[in-house]
């Protein structure tokens, strides 16, 4: 078996007295698509943000590609973040830059790639997300679905090994959800390692290799989508699914 690309060991995170993550030990293998589901407020976002150290764990460790992130200096953490793209619920595009500039900024400033090469790569990525005709648009003129696809292209521009998605379609109008999920599905087909927090059960069923059910600060279940949806083991998950699938 290949070495896992992400290993989480006894991860815990508290905000003051609020123990959001209590004790999480899981791993993600290279090329796997993990879908994390669970009730709102269960700590899914916090968990995802601990993976690239946007949130500092209270205890436990997060290993990425064999390196324990919690012991590294800021510079090395910055370097490893390049290899973990992140897509947010609210897109977080840079409103003062065009679509193209949004995508080119980090490759040029962080990796030192020259303008021509960065531009070329940005156009390739925009084609991949079907938005090359919007290269010179400003984010404010984009629909939610378009903005999220640009955000995905922007994250991909750093050539990450892993992509983290935090409810990428939750802020979208229903008719735009499909275009974003399609892009994600394609990405999965290409073999990208992905950790996706979502409420899109259809996506989970068809794309995920594993489903992690998270509630009350623990991963309550870790199973294949078929097993999880057809035969959830815990009462917590049964309860959650009955509410969601009604």
């Amino acid at each position, binding site marked *: 078996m290949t070495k896992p690309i992400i290993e989480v060991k006894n991860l815990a995170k508290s905000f003051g007295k609020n123990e959001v993550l209590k004790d999480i030990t899981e791993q993600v293998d290279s090329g796997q698509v993990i879908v994390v589901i669970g009730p709102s407020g269960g700590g899914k976002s916090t968990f995802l943000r601990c993976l*690239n150290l*946007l949130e500092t764990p209270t205890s436990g460790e997060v290993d990425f590609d064999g390196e324990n992130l919690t012991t590294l200096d*800021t*510079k090395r953490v*910055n*370097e490893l*973040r*390049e*290899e*973990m*793209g*992140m897509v*947010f619920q*609210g897109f*977080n*595009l*840079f*409103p*003062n830059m065009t679509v193209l500039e949004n995508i080119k*900024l*980090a490759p040029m*400033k*962080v990796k030192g790639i020259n303008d021509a090469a960065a531009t070329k790569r940005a156009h390739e990525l925009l084609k991949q997300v079907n938005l090359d005709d919007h290269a010179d648009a*400003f*984010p*404010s*003129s984009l629909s939610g679905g378009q903005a999220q696809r640009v*955000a995905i292209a*922007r*994250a991909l521009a*750093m050539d990450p090994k892993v992509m*983290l998605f935090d409810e990428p379609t939750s802020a979208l109008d229903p008719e735009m959800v499909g275009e974003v999920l399609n892009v994600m599905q394609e990405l999965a087909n290409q073999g990208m390692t992905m950790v996706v927090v979502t409420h899109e059960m259809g996506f989970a069923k068809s794309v995920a290799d594993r489903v992690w059910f998270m509630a009350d600060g623990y991963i309550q279940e870790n199973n294949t989508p078929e097993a999880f949806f057809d035969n959830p083991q815990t009462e917590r998950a049964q309860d959650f699914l009955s509410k969601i699938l009604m």
Partner: protein
Amino acid sequence: MKKRLVLFFALVLALVTGFTTMTATTANAATDTSLSKVQKKGTLVMGTSPDYPPYEFQATVHGKTKIVGMDVAVGEKIAKDMGVKLVVKSMSFDSLLVALQTGKVDMVISGMNPTPARRKNVDFTHTYYQGGYSIVINKSDKGIYKNKDSFVNKTIGAQTGSTMYNESKKQTSGTTVKGMTSVSDLILALQSHKIQGVAMEKPSAQAYVANNKELAAIPSDFNLSASDTSASVAFKKGSTALVTAANKSVDQIKKQNLVNKTYLPAAGKYLKTNTVNTSMFHYWKAFLTGIEYTLIITVCSVFFGFIIGVILALARMGQGGAVKTGLRWLATAYVEFIRGTPMMVQVMFVYFGLGLIVNLPALTSGIIAISLNSGAYVAEYIRGGINSVDDGQTEAARSLGMSSGLSMRYVILPQALKNIWPSLGNEFITLIKDSSIVSIIGVSELIFQSNIVRSDTYRGVAPIAVIMVLYFILTFTASRILNYFERRMQHD
């Protein structure tokens, strides 16, 4: 004699005296090298406040503005007798003694009378001129007023804090004494019948009367001691050699009656040529210089103030670590301190206080002080601007592998700046107006220039109207330009 000493000028003086006596007494004790120092550098720098004709004032000579007057003639004689060149440096009267103590000038000749209080801080030569006081009235009132006692139930004006102001209060009864900062303003008040007489020095009174047909002078008949009506040259305390040398010249001036025979008539001639043409257009060069300096000060201060502001804002927002906490504390203290003290005091502190360590020209000092001041305000705008940018922006940047520095520079600051652009624009426009404060240390910006034009032309209102319009043109143009850039930044 002029004796204006606003309270905090006195304080600054006291402070500076404290510093200098602490540092200088040991040096002076051995041998006095003051004269040889001046002779070595070949120049004698005279400080004066050129708004007091015929003692000292600005005149246009062959198209160039120049400081002239009987005091300049005295200074020239002293310099010549020492075998060096005279350099005249102008600044407000209140700043003169501080400038002397901080080494900005070698001597002060500015119609200054050697009062016991001043003798504590500086050394005076013998008296070179014995003046007296007159009261200037409207010519139409000539039959009504005879001397100081004729103003019962009337109002006499005098320069605030001057000997005349104090004596008018003491030596009249039933008379209201109105104080104003400048003689030009007093004359204006006189002509608009807000006051009935202006007490001032005899030569000045003569100059005003000679240049304005509406005015007349009457004797004041005040009871005064000699030291209140005499003028002396001031040197830095302890420079005995310089005083001794200057006294030789002063004694000659006295003996040959040079002031009355030569200097005053010569000054009078400048006054005449000076006031032939009192149209504001004739002084366009003076105003242009004013605009130039106002803009230089404003633009430089905005530039450096902005840089200082960014640094302070970042320091104030630093989190964690002892160093960052220390910096945050320092930056906060700095901002609070600057915002809690008047800009005028800061300007004087930089010019005179910092002047003890490095000798900075007035313009540089002004720019430094205003930049330091503006930086504190800009820092607060920037901090607000940074806080107004959504946290998601930082997270997106950091998730792409950008360091906190890169995120700040390329993602957060540009957005913060856009948000605070209107506030920064306001700061720029405020600075155009507030830069006028540096006039007190003698920088030729608009206010300073307008005061000179006022004392040159004996016209009180016209120069004010001119700079009012000029300031408006400056601020209006600036706000148009800023609006243009604001519109260009609106992408969303």
